[in-house]
């Protein structure tokens, strides 16, 4: 009986995992097929190992510069939300007055408003700031959209830290500001992991705002570059599309796999508090 339960558990886990992986495998197969391959012939799960697709895809799609743009936007935005967000969260968590309560509620309510709601009016502001087709402008937009959630996570986390450490530091002569940066900020690592995983991938993959604010080819981020590149094929040349998609996916998958341990832990801890 026990063995039967174990077997069925493992079988279902293997099935679930393959369900998650098979589409990736098929993308890989398509990306390695010869341009002229007739799909219905031979073993369709066996690719041709035709690597030229990757070279062609890389050269024709500007995906390289798009990856750099996405990276710049993501790092800038994450830097902003982690510094600004944790500072705001610190005052909210440590000083329970009416102003801070109001700020917290404002962020809490804003968490429920998706970015697309204010994107059109934001466009006019971005024109006035000369921020259209700039990486910093896009980073600021993404940071502002991610800020409510960041403040929420950090506030919950700072509340769980004992106040005594702050008080000890202040008695030792630290100002509030240095207390935060030297004592509290390093302790926020688990919350930062949650903030990075939940917002970072979303900013990296942002498409709904990129369509508005990154129209110039040299400033395209990954999804914007891919969609522009794919549209010119009108549904043909899947081998090139697939190869470019694989290139586009490599940085995120790589980052996820390298940091998966701390990221998954941060996610569970963050979700627990949330």
């Amino acid at each position, binding site marked *: 009986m026990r063995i039967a339960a174990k077997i069925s*558990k493992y079988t*279902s*886990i293997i099935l*679930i*995992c393959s*369900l*998650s992986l098979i*589409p*990736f495998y*098929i993308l890989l197969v*398509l990306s390695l097929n010869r341009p002229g391959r007739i*799909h*219905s012939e031979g073993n*369709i799960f066996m690719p041709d190992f035709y690597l030229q697709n990757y070279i062609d895809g890389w050269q024709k799609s500007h995906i390289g510069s798009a990856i750099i743009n996405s990276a710049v936007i993501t790092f800038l935005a994450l830097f*902003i939300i982690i510094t*600004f967000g944790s*500072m*705001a969260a610190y*005052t909210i968590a440590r000083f329970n007055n009416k*102003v801070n309560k109001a*700020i917290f509620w404002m*962020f809490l309510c*804003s968490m429920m408003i*998706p*970015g*697309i*709601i204010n994107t*059109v*009016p934001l466009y*006019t*502001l971005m024109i006035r700031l000369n921020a259209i087709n700039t990486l910093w402008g896009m980073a*600021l937009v993404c940071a*502002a959209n991610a*800020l409510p959630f960041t403040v929420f996570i950090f506030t919950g986390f700072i509340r769980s830290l004992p*106040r005594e450490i702050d008080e000890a530091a*202040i008695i030792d002569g630290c*100002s*509030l*500001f240095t207390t*935060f940066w030297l004592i509290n900020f390093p302790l926020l690592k688990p919350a930062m992991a949650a903030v990075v995983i939940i917002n970072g991938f979303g900013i*990296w*993959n942002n*498409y*709904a705002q990129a369509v*508005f604010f990154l129209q110039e080819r040299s400033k395209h981020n990954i999804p914007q570059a*891919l*969609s522009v590149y794919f549209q010119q094929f009108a549904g043909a040349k899947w081998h090139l*599309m697939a190869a470019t998609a694989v290139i*586009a*996916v490599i940085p*995120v*998958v790589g980052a*996820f796999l390298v940091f998966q*341990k701390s990221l*998954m832990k941060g*996610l*569970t*801890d963050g*979700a*627990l508090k949330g």
Partner: protein
Amino acid sequence: MRQSKIGLHTFMAVPALVLFTLFFLLPLAQGIGMSFTDWDGLRTPNFVGLQNFFNFFKDTRALNDIKTTVLFALGSASLLNLVGLVYALIMDGKFRGKGLARVIIYLPAVISPLIMGYIWYFLLQPGRGFLSIAIKQLGHSEGLTNWMNTYCLQMLILVLVNVWQYTGMAMVIYLAGLQGIPKELYESAKIDGAGYGGQLRYVTLPLLLPSIRVNIVTNIIGSLAVFDVIMALTDGGPGYATESLSIYIMRMCYGAKTGYSTAVAMIMFLIILVPVVISMRLTRERK
């Protein structure tokens, strides 16, 4: 904390507040103003009162977009939570390869929904899609039926792709919730004679309510703002059949109907408010 230190701390929230006001609250307020004008993005706008909103409800395309968006959100949120919960229950507890399995299941969630949409487009395209060819090789000469012809099938496919991508996220939240349930409760439930079903009904589910609330609220908001998957899989087509409100806002803005597109955004905001308030109420009352 000591009273004398209060002066400085208020400034620590200032950077966040400035950024948020400039790039979020101000545009939001502006958008409310713009939604009452006929602005086309260039000329000076005229105040037209509620005209944009009347136009919206007369526009069959807009009404269809509401239907598509709401159906997508309801389908996604319910399926995501159901599948995510089942996955979490299977993946809970200790077994070999647990970490690896979790990473694999979460993996789709870190990839751009746009790319996900394209992957499934390669798989599901009628006639020459991968699945279609696989079915043909198995001996069914017609291959995959042409799901692009039927609205229900299109919606089902869009929902399933979305669920496939984000189940890992729902699962992780439920796993975190499951970890928080004290083991003693299961012991005492066992002593009281509860089987697996009884434990699930009287211990697991009631204690998971906070996680369920978080999941449902985030899923509904996320799915109501759906943009990428639909752009990649159907491009809102055929015609405007599977267009979502977000895509409609973008297209109206590019179609020099800026005032109108902000009005659509306001309507979308009101739609989002409904499920959020209801689900918050419901789960709070049960406590």
